[in-house]
């Protein structure tokens, strides 16, 4: 048996060595030059559009029954194939499709994945390809627009956006002895001291998505503006003080354990209407869910707790991007333009997708009263650092913040350790 195993192992190793000796790719082939994709040119053929629109909230219906048919009517003879991929699977699907050279023409990509996709060379830079790019860019809120930048170019345009504000349960606050919702970080601390051992606020995790609004509002940051280094920023006094406040609230039991990752704890979207958590910091997508599951609950909103840096929340949402592989880039560009048109943006606004276009703000606020708070917050909201290394950076930050919350490291030690791991990644670009 051993002899057979040895023989087999040797064959496998030799085969591996043989493969290793082969060239592993195109030797750093440069992406093909981008053709100019002017607006209004005659388009034909078919494109595929990947997205993670949800079926439950009517998004798919709006896309497939209204937006795509209208686009196809405008351009007779063209066809847009819509492919829905769940939000959770999207990243993995994109990675495997990139490896297998089977990406679609247009993608609605989560804003944090755009620099990564740009880095691995699968996207066409819209700032080069579309002559009218700048006119589209000028329409956008600066936060969502910034999520498309990588290496001096813009690789997409904001398709929809969102941000987080304080959503609170008035009755639960009063029951815990807090007369009105805290407006500032100081008031939040004071309220936590006052209620002593009762929850005042819940956060569903300790990653950049959850912690950056506190850091920014306190006047700190995660990296320098060019996203080249985190030393002096993430472990600087303002960022550390913001995280220290969160750790103190957690230790005082003013913040529940779901901040450690959400596994096992009551989700924030359930805890708030149930009255367990008096306040959460969350996005507009929580409203339809709460309205369905807790029809009697009336959520109220307030801007992100302000501090030395103002009231600064985090930008979420999706960008629309075109792939290098697309064989019909003219049609892809025309479809992107249509997806950003008032018709399509309004149709998506009706089903919960906030437009990132400044001109659309009024129309959006008219659709849903609660949109107004988010549109106001968007004026100062910032994107997470636009880096292709974001997934790793966020993982490191999350783990170190969790170690600080668990008391295994001081906040300063945890952030020093995070910086030591993050900066080499940022240096890779």
């Amino acid at each position: 048996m051993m002899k057979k195993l040895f023989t087999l192992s040797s064959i496998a190793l030799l085969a591996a060595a043989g493969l290793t000796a082969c060239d592993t790719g195109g030797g750093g082939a440069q992406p093909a030059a981008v053709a100019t994709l002017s607006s209004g040119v005659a388009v034909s053929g078919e494109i595929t559009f990947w997205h993670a629109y949800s079926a439950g909230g009517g998004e798919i219906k709006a896309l497939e029954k209204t937006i795509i048919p209208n686009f196809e009517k405008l351009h007779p003879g063209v066809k847009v194939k819509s492919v829905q991929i769940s939000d959770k699977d999207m990243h993995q699907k994109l990675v495997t499709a990139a490896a297998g050279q089977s990406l679609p023409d247009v993608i609605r990509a989560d804003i944090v994945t755009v620099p990564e996709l740009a880095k691995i060379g699968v996207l066409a830079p819209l700032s080069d390809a579309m002559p009218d790019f700048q006119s589209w860019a000028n329409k956008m809120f600066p936060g969502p627009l910034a999520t498309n930048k990588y290496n001096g170019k813009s690789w997409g345009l904001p398709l929809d956006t969102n941000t987080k504000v304080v959503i609170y349960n008035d009755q639960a606050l009063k029951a815990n002895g807090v007369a009105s919702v805290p407006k500032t970080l100081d008031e939040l601390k004071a309220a936590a001291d006052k209620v002593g051992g009762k929850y005042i606020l819940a956060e569903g995790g300790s990653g950049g998505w959850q912690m950056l609004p506190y850091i920014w509002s306190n006047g700190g940051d995660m990296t320098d503006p060019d996203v080249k280094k985190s030393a002096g920023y993430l472990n600087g006094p303002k960022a550390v003080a913001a995280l220290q406040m969160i750790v103190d609230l957690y230790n005082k039991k003013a913040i529940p354990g779901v901040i450690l990752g959400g596994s096992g704890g009551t989700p924030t979207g359930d805890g708030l209407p149930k009255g367990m958590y008096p306040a959460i910091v969350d996005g507009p997508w929580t409203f339809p869910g709460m309205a369905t599951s807790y029809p009697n609950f009336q959520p109220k909103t307030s801007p992100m707790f302000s501090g030395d840096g103002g009231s600064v929340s985090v930008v979420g949402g999706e960008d629309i991007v075109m792939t290098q592989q697309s064989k019909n880039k003219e049609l892809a560009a025309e479809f992107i333009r249509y997806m950003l048109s008032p018709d399509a943006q309004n149709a998506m606004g009706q089903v919960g997708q906030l437009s990132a276009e400044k001109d659309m703000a009024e129309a959006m606020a008219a659709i849903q009263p609660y949109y107004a708070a988010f549109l106001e917050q968007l004026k100062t909201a910032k994107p997470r650092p636009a880096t292709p290394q974001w997934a790793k950076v966020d993982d490191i930050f999350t783990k170190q913040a969790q170690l600080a919350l668990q008391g295994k490291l001081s906040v300063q030690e945890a952030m020093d350790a995070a910086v030591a791991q993050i900066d080499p990644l940022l240096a890779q670009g």
Partner: protein
Amino acid sequence: MTAQRLSGQEVSTASAARPRKPGRGGASRRPSHWWVPWAFAAPGLILFFLTTGYPLVRSLQISFYNWSVLPTQASTFIGLDNYTRALADPQFWTSVTNAGVYLLMSVPATVALGLLFAVLLQKKMPGRTLFRILFYIPVVTSWVVVSLLFKFLFTTDDGAVNWFITDFLSLSDHAVPWLEQRWTGLIAISLLGIWKNLGWCLVVLLASLGGVGEELYEAAALDGANAWHKFVHVTLPGIRGTLLFVLVLQVIGAFNVFPSVLLMTNGGPAGSTEVPLTYMYKQAFSFLDFGYGSAMAFILAIFIFIVSFAQFKFLGEKKEALR
């Protein structure tokens, strides 16, 4: 796959040990052409090389590279860097330790309970078939479904387990944050492992128990053996080969624990419940570090190979000695 391979080894070893029958009968069964057996084996072999052999070799190649996801972009050969990086990565060792803890908490209990229930269900009793089916249901149920079910059971605020501990038994006045801490998280994941794998152990051992000759029990009874003596001196030696098989597969399975961890704790908090497969999955598919993920997979494969080999060597020799 592994089960088939291992059982295949057993079969081939057994047939090799069997003396060949001399004479014309043996010669007449020899195939007329050398390629006939290969032709029969070809579909399976082709499938094996396409779905297992080639990916394995490719993965080994990737492990020596700073691998680029896009085939059009160059990957850099970095030799053993990914391997040395893994060996120096404390998170990798935490994940291996967690797999070891999971193994110790789940495998002995699974095999022991599987054996106990197999012995009980071997006896003729009413509803025996029903119980056999009930025990096997978790095995055929999707890992995803049962992992989400267990996550729900172990939820801190509304979970049934905490209700049972705090409200029903009054053992504690506060809810245990099962999935928010390392050791309680691993306990919950191990309990799922036991529940899920018990039925498989039971069925395999049950089949093996049926093969122990009735005459051996009769002979033992004549010698005055009681039930315990019969179990220790007749049953256990009779199924030792199958027990070894079950144990080896369970140990391999424990190192490969994946969906339950991913869905119940996702390796958190702070990576404290990470196991090798969740860690390498994240390296590859979240961070696009396929070279590093592949290197960890091979380190784990070598480790599992050594442990399995030691089990066969150590327990297999005992089997021979007993004969």
